[in-house]
């Protein structure tokens, strides 16, 4: 892994809190990302992902704590010159063409890619002469990608980059991002899609309710899932509360279909049999990343990383002030 000159990490957040009025979007975040890492920030909607990216890009100021990009304040032009960004909620002049926009953005950076290379990387070669307003949702996302990479930046920040893309377009697009990462660039992307994080990142930071609740490799995150995923059907009605005393998480009960995670599935099932619950089509399988994610962020709150006390606010929205 290349070490950054001057020793400063690409990203450094220390004790960062962010309030939008009364709403606390980030509740004390510490994060350090070194050059060359590909990091996925994973979390449900409203977890604080967009806020975290906005702070790293200097688009928002922290209420408390410090944010550094390449060792500088993120709004410093020297820091901004070393990163490209793809935002979730930004617009583009609709009556400029893809080529004109890429040329404009290339002028912001000292050592830009060639125009055709940037457009090609984003898979928009046949759209270079089209105005941005005529592009589909997925093509527009790829245009934003072209604008983010055309300056040949050392670090890329991508906020929910695959929103609005169909499955095929998404795979091709993820390949483009992975390719950029393989060239030694730092990539930080937010997503709420597990397989995206799994396929792309070598480190996953799970964020929920404004806090980092896990920070590990995809393998490590999966291993935190509470053992096994148990699924069965039952004609009997089960109250979710009746499972509360058992060592289970991620409980879902709907239409006679019951599913939960447990580190000790055998005694749990023994207890259910003892209660005389009819169990049909029983499946017990290994937990996947999605299960791990549910276990970490589920309604019962974090199941690992220690006790964090009660949460004062029930919901947090990224754009609460808009």
């Amino acid at each position, binding site marked *: 892994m290349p070490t950054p000159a001057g020793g400063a990490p690409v990203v450094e957040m220390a004790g960062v809190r962010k309030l939008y009025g009364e709403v606390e979007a980030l509740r004390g975040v510490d994060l350090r990302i070194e050059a060359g890492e590909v990091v996925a920030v994973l979390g449900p909607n409203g977890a604080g992902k967009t806020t975290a990216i906005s702070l790293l890009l200097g688009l928002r100021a922290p209420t408390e704590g410090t944010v550094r990009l390449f060792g500088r304040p993120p709004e410093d032009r020297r820091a901004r*010159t070393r990163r490209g960004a793809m935002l979730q909620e930004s617009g583009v002049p609709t009556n*400029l063409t893809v080529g004109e926009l890429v040329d404009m953005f290339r002028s912001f950076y*000292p050592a830009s890619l060639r125009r055709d290379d940037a457009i090609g990387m984003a898979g928009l070669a046949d759209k270079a002469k089209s105005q941005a307003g005529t592009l589909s949702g997925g093509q527009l996302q790829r245009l934003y990608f072209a604008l983010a990479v055309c300056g040949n930046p050392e670090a890329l920040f991508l906020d929910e980059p695959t929103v609005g893309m169909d499955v095929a377009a998404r795979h091709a697009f993820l390949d483009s991002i992975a390719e950029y990462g393989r060239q030694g660039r730092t990539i930080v992307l937010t997503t709420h899609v597990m397989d995206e994080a799994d396929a792309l990142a070598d480190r996953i930071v799970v964020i929920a309710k404004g806090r980092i609740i896990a920070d590990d490799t995809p393998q490590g995150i999966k291993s935190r899932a509470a053992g096994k995923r148990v699924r069965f059907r039952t004609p009997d009605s089960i109250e979710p509360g009746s499972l509360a005393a058992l060592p289970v998480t991620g409980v879902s009960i709907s239409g006679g279909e019951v599913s939960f995670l447990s580190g000790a599935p055998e005694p749990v099932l023994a207890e259910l049999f003892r209660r005389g619950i009819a169990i049909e089509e029983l499946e017990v399988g290994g937990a996947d990343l999605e299960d791990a994610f549910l276990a970490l962020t589920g309604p019962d709150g974090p199941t690992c990383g220690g006790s964090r006390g009660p949460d004062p606010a029930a919901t947090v929205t990224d754009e609460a002030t808009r």
Partner: protein
Amino acid sequence: MSELARPPVEPVLPAPVWPMLRLQALAQARIFWRTPALSIVSLLLPIMLFVFFGLPNASTPYLPGVTLGTYMLASFAAYAVASTMVFGFGVTLALARGQRIDVLMRSTPLPGSIYMLARAVAALGFGLLSLVALYAVAIVAAGIRLGPDVWIEMTLWMLLGAIPFIFFGFFIAYATSPSSAPAVANMVFLVMAFASGLFVRLDQLPDFLATIAPYMPTYHYAQLAWASIGAPSQPVSTSVAWLVGYSVVFFALALWAYRRDARRRFG
């Protein structure tokens, strides 16, 4: 992908400013040109108004050595450039804010000052274009003949004196919501222009308008055009002083509105 340049090694110097400014101004000019609702109005409306108000009595003598046609040409030259600043700079800025293009630009290394300067350069370019189009109609349709020094003097005064209207547009763009900015700009500017004797000349304005005219920025701006053709009603230094004052006031208001918006959306 092996042919891609390697990422630059520290220290990274910011990109040079001149190509940034040039490409940004070019992009803004294209955006304006490709928005006919703005560009057509900016270029054609002053000509149409001149044809309606100035052409019928174009050769009637008005002041010693100045025909009514020449006087109205100067009035609409002021109207043309000032309105291009209000719409070409102000309303397009409000639209960019409404479409969250300003968020995109903030995510790049482009300095905010270059972004604004490029917009001003593009708007002034269109102001010059609207002047040339108006002059052509005045020469061809109204038979107006002025010395080259007069044409040049009027053009330079109009471009230089347009600065307070850039700040005015800046203020409107950030003080109002993006959807109401065009209407607010239209209303305020039209009233200002009318009350300054740009459509109906000063000696024909209703009394109460004639009384407030000398307090309008458009009035002092038009004085520069009228001075170029030898028909001012006050010394040029007075007009310039008023325009400098208005520039300071509008810039202060624009900065206040801009910072208020930045605190809300980027704080």
